[in-house]
């Protein structure tokens, strides 16, 4: 039986998870019943802490405080729940509503709500809230006590800037949204929350600025997130892969960042951010090609410098894409293009190399990829060994053994550096894969092969869309006004309009007269110098 047939046979019907059965039962009036149910549902897990106490002796009313160890903020529970409840133990309970007493007099935490179904109860309990059950009530009180040990706000390791905020996102979604709120203090900064992942029940928020963002983009984001029915969401990468436009392509159509200032900047341009609990990587949609060559720092330094740096990045990307391919094409097809002196040098180096140029290139490229992958996930101490092995054994040894020419090592090394200089890892990794395709193209047909590959690449890129936005905007379609923040980075005072490609509701960004002007009269400045000043001449 062929493999394909076997696979068809193994095709099974989707099983419906049994979570639906939980909702059938609602909260009972008996506290013992309820506590038993919770114990049974959580498998008697010891980290579910249940504490019972009496809150009134006549009639005897008992209450239970339930929370998950480690997820809650312990001082809050001790001081504002247990302590106050014990203090307010009443000898005789008035004919008042117990809940009213509790909410108004006893419980002193920030947010308090009432629930009556088990689903919501467990959801809150497992998110770190504290559940208060009262005897004789078929409802439960949920007190917000989320807390516990979390990584503090630190500098992001993957997006380092010399200038600008050092804050990076953490794994906590609340901290992350707060970090953005601290930057944009505007009631129009809207957050929508949802809960995805059938087993993990991961919190997820989308954030945008109402009045700037195009409603259609938000609608599209909601709709795409709405159809997510994954078992687990362990990272924003899960979400990225199920909402992106081109899931099998090589180019990312969703970008992510660890920096709150990057999120803020993108929100202000009219984009939507997706926060996922448990990861510092916040997704930003829609993403266009040129974004992957930009960093927040570009806007913090003066514009001629960041323009040059952006151009350098695009150039680096091209090198990392076609560097070895160019070398292979030139040395096996277009020797006439190399200056004679250089050709003699290269020829003398390849004289003793037993392989054709393409095999040489593949050997070195694959070796480099192995070294990179080996060094990436190693502890620092071992990675030093790897760099020695890489530099000495492979780099030098391979040349002395005459297996690869020194010129090829230079080309591969330059390409490697260029690929690491691309600021966004997602786009660098696309170039890394495509590089091999270009090398094969160059080995088959020289420059013709490279150009053919580039044409195909461009055709692919212009056909891409990210949440309805053309991927190559503002180049294709050409939007002249947006060009000043693309490969170039115009002066801040010239950014009078938001990017047109994102179709923002509010196009006007700032006043039109932001260019600084010199003082009208120099005399105004001179007048300030007084007798006895150091500048006095």
């Amino acid at each position: 039986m062929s493999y394909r047939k076997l696979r068809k046979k193994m095709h099974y019907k989707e099983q419906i998870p049994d979570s639906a059965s939980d909702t059938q039962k609602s909260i009972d009036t008996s506290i013992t019943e309820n506590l038993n149910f919770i114990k049974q549902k959580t498998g008697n897990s010891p980290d579910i802490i249940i504490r019972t106490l009496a809150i009134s002796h006549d009639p005897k009313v008992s209450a239970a405080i339930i929370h998950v160890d480690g997820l809650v903020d312990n001082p809050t529970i001790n001081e504002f729940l247990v302590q106050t409840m014990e203090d307010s133990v009443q000898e005789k309970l008035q004919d008042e509503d117990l809940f009213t007493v509790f909410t108004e007099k006893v419980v002193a935490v920030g947010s308090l709500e009432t629930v009556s179904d088990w689903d919501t109860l467990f959801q809150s309990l497992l998110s770190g809230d504290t559940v208060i059950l009262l005897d004789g009530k078929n409802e439960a009180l949920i007190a917000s006590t989320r807390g516990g040990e979390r990584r503090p706000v630190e500098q992001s390791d993957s997006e380092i800037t010399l200038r600008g905020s050092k804050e990076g996102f953490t794994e906590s979604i609340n901290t992350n949204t707060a970090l953005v709120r601290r930057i944009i203090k505007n009631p129009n900064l809207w957050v929508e929350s949802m809960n995805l992942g059938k087993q993990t029940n991961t919190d997820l928020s989308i954030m945008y600025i109402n009045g700037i963002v195009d409603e259609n983009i938000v609608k599209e984001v909601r709709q795409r997130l709405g159809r997510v029915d994954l078992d687990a969401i362990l990272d924003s990468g899960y979400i990225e892969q199920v909402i992106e436009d081109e899931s099998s392509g090589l180019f990312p159509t969703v970008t992510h960042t660890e920096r709150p200032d990057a999120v803020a900047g993108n929100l202000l341009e009219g984009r939507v951010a997706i926060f996922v609990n448990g990861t510092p990587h916040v997704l930003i949609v829609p993403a266009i090609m040129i974004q992957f060559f930009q960093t927040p720092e570009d806007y913090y330094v003066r514009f001629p410098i960041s323009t040059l740096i952006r151009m350098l990045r695009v150039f680096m990307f091209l090198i990392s894409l076609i560097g070895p391919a160019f070398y292979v094409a030139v040395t096996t097809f277009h020797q006439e293009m190399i200056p004679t002196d250089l050709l003699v040098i290269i020829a003398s180096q390849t004289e003793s190399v037993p392989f054709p140029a393409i095999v040489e290139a593949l050997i070195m490229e694959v070796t480099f990829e192995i070294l990179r992958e080996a060094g990436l996930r190693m502890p620092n101490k071992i990675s030093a060994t790897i760099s020695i092995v890489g530099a000495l054994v492979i780099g030098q040894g391979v040349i002395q053994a005459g297996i690869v020419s020194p010129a090829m090592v230079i080309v591969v090394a330059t390409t490697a550096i260029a690929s690491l200089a691309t600021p966004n890892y997602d786009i660098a990794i696309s170039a890394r894969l495509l590089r091999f395709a270009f090398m094969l193209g160059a080995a088959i047909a020289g420059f013709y092969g490279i150009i053919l590959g580039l044409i195909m690449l461009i055709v692919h890129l212009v056909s891409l869309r990210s949440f309805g936005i053309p991927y190559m905007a503002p180049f294709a379609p050409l939007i002249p006004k947006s060009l000043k923040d693309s490969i170039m980075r115009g002066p801040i005072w010239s950014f009078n309009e938001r990017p047109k490609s994102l179709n923002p509701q509010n196009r006007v960004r700032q006043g039109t007269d932001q260019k600084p002007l010199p003082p009208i009269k120099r005399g105004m400045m001179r007048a300030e110098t007084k007798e006895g000043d150091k500048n006095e001449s």
Partner: protein
Amino acid sequence: MSRKWIIPFFMAACLPFLSGCWSSIELKELAIVSAYALDKKEDGTYVGTFQLINPMNVPGALQGGASGQNPSIATYTATGDNPLEVADRASTIVSRDLYFAHTSLLVISEELAREEGLSSILDAMERGIEFRTTTKIVISRDVKAGEFVQVLTAIDQVPAEKAIKSLEFTEELYGENIATNLQKFINAAVSTGKEPLVSGFSVEGDIEKAKTMEQLQSSDGSATIKVNGMGVFKEGKLVNWIDGEKSEGTLWVLDQIRQAPVNIDWENHEDAISYKVVRQKTNVATKIKDGKPAISVHIRAEGDLRVIEVPVDITNPHVLFRIEGALQQKIQAEAKAAIEVAQKTKTDIFGFGEKLHHSEPKVWQQFEKEWQDVYFPALDVDVTVEAFIRRTGMRNNPYLFDLNKKSE
């Protein structure tokens, strides 16, 4: 990927590793030809000599190579009925593919240039895919072209490079030569109103020794390659040589001088003042006078004084004007002498005919056919010169002048 695609994919993936795929050729399969020399045998066949670069022996190219021990070039000789056949026959003695894209020098023997001309050779060169039209042409003077490319040179490891560099530097610094490439030669040769000029090279010394490493082991070498005059071509054949001051005059008229020394006599002292041109412009104007063409050449030169061997007071502007006047006369004389020589040999190397063609296209038709033989030799050429001294070097008066003043 379905199975339908797997097999084609692997087949395609194998393609780059297969040899002989399209025009792909590895570097080590190439024999890089740096110079191509053509001689002629008595029986009328061509003798081609290829100067091939031996990359392993080029010093500095690779550590651990045999550099410096062995010649950085190898030469092979083959015969054939035309330049391409020569190259094809050479494949029987060369183990690699002769690669002409980096051939920078084409050497033609004087004998071949005089008797047969270059027309038939150049067609083969220009038509070939690999051969560049920027390849420089030179004539080997008093020496076989094949022997010329076998001479080793000390500083430039590839002799062809050395020949081209000395050609270009003498053109720029000395103003007595012209670097002609294939394209320039062909353009001039096909034009009815212009004839090409090609620099000559000669070898001085013991050629046999110069082919061995002995040549590189002494500081003076056994033989040297030397730029030597300019050959004048008519109808594709070498007809005359121009040497020395006449070649300088030729370049003045041709507007090719970049930095040339001009020496003038001063008060009975021969070549007492030396002047170095730094900027030069020559304008050639044509007009028809009484139904006859007339040419006026205006040369404008700017330069510095370099050597003054006589006591002159150059702080005095009037003296400078006198020196300028003398310079003008000297340049004018050189240019006129060069034009006279060209008129005598009935070859319009200056392109006067072409200039006339451009300015008076209709009138040109009546002169075109007999331009070289009838009209050019009888041409009335008026040469005017303006020379300016811009700087007098790092000092003012020559110390001789100050010395004289002291003794007075």
